[in-house]
């Protein structure tokens, strides 16, 4: 993913007086080889690339270019897109607020059953999203284990609401963030936190002012992963939050339902989603990933 956070290379950096100029930060290029790649690697790599790109190309080839403007003129498209962008961003925010501390707990503390907790955290990664949606209904639905209390105490019901969409998306997206941030935390030198503590920082201050900036690239990468996952989320969303235009019908839901009787509309919607996600991901990559390391 991104470069693990490394301590400043002082130990091996010769004084600038000797080498004539301070050394640049650790470059990325040394791992890159010159010359041709061996065929046993190149061939499957190219096949893999084609395999991943071909469906996207097909989408472009079969796109109803003639009626595209007409398809995109429908207000439902923009309604769904707006909802998708909003809910994916909100789900990422929820994942950040809850997931980063969780990742810290997993990476930096010892407690009995930590391995099990870690495995459970990653469970939504393997769980079919529809099952996740049903599980969310059983937990947070109007009649769910906790949802029942939410309903009777606060009058809050999550299913069929935009908040429900955010909950469903956060459920499937947060593990990506937790795993990514935990990995970065493990690679980061915990002694920076100790150094901060000897300077008078409490453990929380050390986390906030030292660790957090240090693992920012990992957090950014994890956020992008989580955001992308949330944007494409279908199964848990439609199961938990249902499908109502403007409220819970995100782009993937709109695509799926359009596919039922109007494949042109579905392709048009898919293109919009594809374009927006490529634009956002590319934009974020340039801004965060490279600048931070």
């Amino acid at each position: 993913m991104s470069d693990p956070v490394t301590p400043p290379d002082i130990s091996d950096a010769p004084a600038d007086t000797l080498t004539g100029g301070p050394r640049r930060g650790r470059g990325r290029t040394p791992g890159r080889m010159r010359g041709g790649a061996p065929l046993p690697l190149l061939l499957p790599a190219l096949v893999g690339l084609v395999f991943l790109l071909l469906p996207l190309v097909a989408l472009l080839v079969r796109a109803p270019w003639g009626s595209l403007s007409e398809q995109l003129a429908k207000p439902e498209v923009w309604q769904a897109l707006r909802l998708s962008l909003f809910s994916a961003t909100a789900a990422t925010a929820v994942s950040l607020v809850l997931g980063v501390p969780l990742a810290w707990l997993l990476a930096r503390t010892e407690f009995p059953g930590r391995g099990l907790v870690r495995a459970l955290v990653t469970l939504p990664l393997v769980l079919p999203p529809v099952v996740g949606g049903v599980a969310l209904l059983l937990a947070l639905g109007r009649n769910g284990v906790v949802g029942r209390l939410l309903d009777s105490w606060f009058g809050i019901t999550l299913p069929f609401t935009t908040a429900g969409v955010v909950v469903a998306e956060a459920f499937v997206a947060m593990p990506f963030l937790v795993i990514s941030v935990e990995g970065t935390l493990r690679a980061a030198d915990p002694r920076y936190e100790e150094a901060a503590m000897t300077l008078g920082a409490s453990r929380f201050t050390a986390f906030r002012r030292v660790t957090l900036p240090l693992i920012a690239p990992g957090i950014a990468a994890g956020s992008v992963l989580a955001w992308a996952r949330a944007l494409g989320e279908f199964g848990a969303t439609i199961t938990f939050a249902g499908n109502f235009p403007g409220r819970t019908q995100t782009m993937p839901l709109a695509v799926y339902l359009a596919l039922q009787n109007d494949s042109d509309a579905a392709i048009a919607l898919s293109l919009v989603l594809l374009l927006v996600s490529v634009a956002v991901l590319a934009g974020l990559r340039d801004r965060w990933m490279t600048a931070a390391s």
Partner: protein
Amino acid sequence: MTETDPVTAAPSGKGLDARLVVRRGSFRLDVELSAAPGDVVALLGPNGAGKTTALRALAGLTPLSEGGRLWLDGVRLDRTPPESRPVGVVFQDYLLFPHLSALDNIAFGPRCRGVPKAEARTQAAAWLERMGLAEFAGTRPRRLSGGQAQRVAVARALATRPRLLLLDEPLAALDARTRLDVRAQLRHHLADFEAVAVLVTHDPLDAMVLADRLVVVEDGRVVQEGGPSDIARGPRTDYIAQLVGLNLYRGEAEGHTVRLEAGPAITTTERLDGPVFVAFPPGAVTLHRDRPSGSSARNLWQCRVAGLETHGDQIRVDLTGELPLAADLTTVATAELGLRPGSSVWATVKAAQTHAYPA
């Protein structure tokens, strides 16, 4: 800087009084350490001796085991968390926060201790000025040279006005040339520092230049302590002897003769009785191809060359035989003698160049 008798630094008084006990698995650290304000104490020892553990215990990063105690300026700190101890640490590789400028690294401590932002930055700027790094205020640590980073690290540790300054191998990360400058500057800053400084190093030169008192730790315990010159002249373990570059032997003295536990006797100038150490520098050894006839030296041993290596501008010859010893020769002398591993030689040492002291 006045030499203070460590015994007078009582728990109630000023300065440091500690017994650092840390058990970790089979390893046990048990080091008594006391120092008066203004003292610079060096913990010297081989890798794995427990020096860094001792430092971490002082900083509160490693808890003390049972039997340990830690008093600083009459305040008990055993249970105080690291962030509440009046302790500053210069870490081995400095651990400057890479995302903060040099100025903000120094201002970090004061900020955490409640100094307002503007005030903390003013203080930090003053520290940079004092360190001669004023123009590097906005520089990120990775753009600093090793020596500059080291000075920022020292300033950062001092900026919280600690009553105990800990330095973990403060010069180890530097190359030889930078080291010379930085060592001199560090000595200057430590001399100015009014509270206790404890320095961990495996380099005897750093220890001797920077510290008033050396505490030699081997395998978790103190094996010798004293002023740099005492240690340098009278090492009491092979490790220290090697560090200070002396041949060291243990034996039983009877007047001017010291009978070694295994092997021959050495004639000394000191007149002693009972168990003693005898030490002499490798430079005091003279080698001969043939048994010297007219030599006045009474210390004469037949040896075999075990190895040769350059040592500064000289050749260090490792000898085995009657008495295992190291000898330093000029390159010319080595060539004239035609020394090579396996060569048989005679070694002499003048009694006047030996130093015997009670064990």
